[in-house]
């Protein structure tokens, strides 16, 4: 970006972009500044004490492990559900495609707060290994949350490859269905699957609504607990949470860039 290029900009464009930059950057900077403060009057400016507090907190490691494992479980279930289905629909049942697309879109119009109310009512009284653990109830809900992102990413991936030719080639060489799926199809939609997985990771690591109403202790719940009880360590945790989201989203953008021209994506952890 040369100076000459900047000089060609309209003055009003400068103002709008500068205002936006201030609005977006100041809260991030404020969070960073808070994370370096200490809870004592007259303490020197900057301390890494809060980061130490986080790293030595057993609950932090416990909850972040739960959230991370939940994300992995959600990704595995979603991929297992969607990859064979979309593959099959592209190969044999093209007329079913709009139906699947519609089903995958429904979670967009059902807010998580409404979804959890329904889930709690529907599955009350089911065995404890499902209703009482995050690995059952929460994972089941998060797979639904991931539906639109999984579907649109994978569907785009399948559209960009020639499913028929790949399948025929594989079968004429004597491969079984499972071999075709795992050794031929999956490597060809790897980037789409990766993009969908990063997105799901970002959603699950930040999801608060369902976990809070269903009373499971995930990482965002721990963050809210610290937020309520002690101000400055919450700054360090918030920054960490931002970093997780940013890392997932930027990995997604990088993966998408390699494939060229991916649509923007909007998740729902709010």
């Amino acid at each position, binding site marked *: 970006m040369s100076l000459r*290029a*900047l000089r060609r900009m*309209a003055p*009003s*464009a*400068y103002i*709008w*972009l500068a*205002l*936006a930059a201030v*609005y*977006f950057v*100041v*809260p991030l900077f*404020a*969070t960073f500044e*808070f994370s370096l403060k200490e809870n004592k009057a007259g303490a020197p400016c900057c301390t890494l004490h809060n980061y130490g507090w986080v790293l030595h907190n057993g609950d932090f490691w416990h909850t972040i492990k739960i959230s991370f494992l939940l994300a992995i479980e959600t990704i595995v279930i979603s991929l297992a*559900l969607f990859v*064979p289905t979309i593959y*099959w629909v592209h190969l*044999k*049942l*093209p007329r079913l*495609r709009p139906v699947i697309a*519609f*089903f995958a*879109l*429904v*979670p967009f*119009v059902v*807010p*998580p*707060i*409404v*979804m*959890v*109310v329904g889930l709690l009512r*529907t599955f009350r009284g089911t065995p404890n290994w499902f209703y009482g653990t995050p690995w059952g109830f929460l994972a089941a*809900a998060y*797979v639904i949350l991931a*539906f639109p992102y999984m579907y649109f990413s994978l569907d785009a991936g399948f559209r960009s490859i020639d499913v028929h030719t790949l399948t025929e080639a594989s079968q004429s060489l004597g491969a079984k269905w499972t071999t075709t799926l795992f050794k031929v199809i999956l490597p060809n939609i790897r980037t789409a699957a990766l993009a969908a997985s990063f997105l799901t990771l*970002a959603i699950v690591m930040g*999801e*608060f609504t369902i976990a*809070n*109403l*269903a009373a499971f202790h995930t990482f*965002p719940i721990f*963050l*809210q607990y610290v937020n309520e009880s002690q101000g400055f360590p919450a*700054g360090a945790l918030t920054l960490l949470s931002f970093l997780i989201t940013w890392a997932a989203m930027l990995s997604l*953008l990088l993966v998408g860039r390699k494939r060229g*021209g991916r*649509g*923007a994506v*909007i*998740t*729902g*952890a*709010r």
Partner: protein
Amino acid sequence: MADQGGRVGISTEALPKPLRPDHGSGRRRLSFAWVATLPFFAYTIAFLFLPAGAVLLGAFQDKHDNATLANVRLLFHNPYLDAYKTSIEVSLVTALLGGILGFMVAYAAIREGTPRVVRSMLTTFSGVAANFGGIPLAFAWIATLGPLGIVTVWLRNAGYNLTQHGFQLFSKTGVEIAYMYFQLPLMILVIAPAIDGLKREWREAAANLGAKQWQFWRYVGIPVLMPSLLGAIILLFGNAFAAYATAYGLDQGLNLVPIQIGDYYTGNVLDNPHLAQALAFGMFVVLAVMMLLYVPLQRRAARWAK
């Protein structure tokens, strides 16, 4: 990147090229092919449609599962009526402001004269920031405009006391300011392709015919963009309306519908879960109305996009 694909949101159009006819599959093979999609449909029914149905049904049942309109009727009394009013107001304000300001920022980044790198930086950042939200976002605003926030302290040192001038972060205004942090990026992402649709030739043609800048916008720019703008604003409305965690992290006492619903499960007021289901049903109705408005507007917007 959002600016290359322009494929924001949703497309359910048919395949671009005709599918290769499937010689091998007769009628009997087809009925077998159905079976392979069963796990997907079973999952969707069990964890999406059954719960949604449970909400709709539960809203019209009393404690003993008999049919009743009492819960839905209660929604028209306070505090629930008030909760809907506040929720709709917060969503409208942040959707309209987010829509207008987001459009301004997006246009500033896309218009001629602005280096292209600015645009790609803005869309990349928006892609990330639209995914912000929840408790971390609430904390970021506490650190900024809370009682000890850096902007609050900075203004106080400069002789301006925010609190004395009636500003409170833990309030409706505070929640609205925080919501803008994900509303603006969403608007930028959604409206950028529409701004690209404003053809340069139109502007030159208008100028050649002697139109001033404001006349171009009044008679060409805004009418062409209007359906996309309205559609995007409705999307923003739904986005804010469904939000729970950000408001919860800032002000648990604010009377919003999601917070009312949440109180039923996190507090100790589980005497009538059907009321929570009725509240959820009401949210569903508001969102459904918004979606019904969205579809024809989207159709009109598509007319100009060719």
